[in-house]
């Protein structure tokens, strides 16, 4: 246990970096995913094609490969952000990679939410003369987003766990911090890793509770 207490500042810093990755990647994946979902639902076929290809390629690529590409290949190509120290650089690259990887899952969750809205809603909107954009933004999406909050939270829970992969690519988040701590105190591997597990559960169980509460509320409304 003393190894955990000794390395607590390190692990706490890692936890904060995990939260930062979750926050940044979560918000940007949400924005990007909504955009992609909109493109997949749009009447213009070229936009649908672009969005479909984007979704299929990213969904069928392992996250490790995406983050490897950002951490190793992007710097070789000289496309990395400049003017920051290398730790921040890897953090930014990992955040971009996680956002890109998560966005198609967000888009699919939103799309299936839109799909679960009864046809009559869209028909009613169309029949009072609303156009595609109006139908989507003021009738379908407000209902759909409420329906998809629980699945969206599930995507965020998965993202929380996925931030751990960044630890394999030079970002000192929880996993990266625990590896440092283990290098320092190899005799207390179990205590260190269990405390890391506790930090992850803190986030995932909280998010899961929120999802359950929201799900219950939405079920009552329906």
């Amino acid at each position, binding site marked *: 246990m003393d190894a955990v207490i000794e390395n607590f500042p390190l692990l706490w810093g890692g936890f904060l970096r995990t939260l930062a990755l979750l926050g940044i990647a979560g918000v940007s994946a949400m924005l990007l995913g909504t955009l992609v979902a909109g493109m997949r*639902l749009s*009447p*213009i*076929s*070229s936009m*649908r094609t*672009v969005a479909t290809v984007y979704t*299929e*390629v990213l*969904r*069928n*690529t*392992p*996250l*490790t*490969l995406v983050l*490897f*590409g950002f951490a*190793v*290949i992007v710097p*070789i*190509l*000289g*496309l990395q952000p400049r003017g920051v120290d290398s730790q921040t650089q890897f953090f930014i690259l990992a955040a971009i990679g996680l956002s890109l990887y*998560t966005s198609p*899952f967000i888009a*699919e969750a939103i799309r*299936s939410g*839109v*799909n679960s809205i*009864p*046809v009559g809603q*869209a*028909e009613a909107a*169309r029949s009072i003369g609303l*156009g*595609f954009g109006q*139908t989507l933004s003021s009738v*379908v999406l407000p209902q759909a987003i409420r329906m998809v909050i629980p699945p969206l939270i*599930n*995507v965020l*829970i*998965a993202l929380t*766990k996925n*931030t*751990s*992969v960044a*630890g*394999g690519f030079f970002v000192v988040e929880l*996993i990266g911090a625990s*590896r440092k701590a*283990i290098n320092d105190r190899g005799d207390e*591997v*179990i205590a260190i*890793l269990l405390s890391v*597990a506790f930090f*992850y*559960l803190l986030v*995932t*169980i909280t998010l899961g509770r929120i999802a359950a509460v929201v799900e219950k509320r939405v079920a009552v409304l329906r």
Partner: protein
Amino acid sequence: MSTVLYDVPGPKARRTARIIGVVVAIVVAALLIWVIVTLALPRTTATGAQQPGYFDPSRWDIFNDRAVWRRIGGNYLNTLKMAGLAAVFAIIIGVLFSFGRTAKLAAVRIPTTVVLEFFRGMPVLLMMLFTLLVFSVEAYWAGVAALAVYNGALIGEILRSGIAALPRGQREAGLTIGLTPLSTRFLIEFPQAARNMLPIIIAQLVVLLKDTALAYVIAYPELLRLVPNLSNFYGDRYRVSIFIVVFAIYLIMNLLLSWVARIVARRTGPQAGSPRIPRRGGIFGRRRVTETVTSPH
């Protein structure tokens, strides 16, 4: 695709769509050209030395070498070996979890639920590191164990929701004809739940195959390990080329598998009873199961 969100486009809307289509095509083409030009341009290193662009034959000639392909094949097999064994164990663990989770005895159900929630909330990578360091096994077994337990927990939940979604009459009928509660579960409920959930389970196994790439971090010689290994052996100038090849292998393999999963979903999916398939068509008509339930993990 016709939907109720918009009318069948008239001449004006078609023209607008065509214009936007051209704009989108130009933007996408510009992006692709930018990527290709960036890759193809000769590069200057920090020391000022000139290096050829990434499409220069000197960066690709190792792929003429049979030995390189043998190593690619070897690592590919390693990936499949890990995924295959982990998938078998994941299904076994998943079945056990689903039985424990639906057990009548609280002494079985509650501990199973706690353990299951614990594993579901864990990153696979953390579980791999834990097995590797605490049990000091080979990377292969650490990867198999972590993937099997994590995906087993998820498959257990999938099967449980499959059992829960069956009409009550199934269980009642089993008990009525004199089967014990246990054999009702084995003979009546479980086979139906497993079949209804097959598409989702296959989707989860595709995720498992993708997740074997995590074993890269614990230095298991799987596909992604080829990039550092081969470029250390043959030279750094091949790093990007090898990455592109590995990327292509993953993409083709997973796209094929997802396609197979979708076919299985269409064959076995839309029958009565599966909980996640809406009975009533949504705005886009009937949706397919695999499209709605995939998650990043």
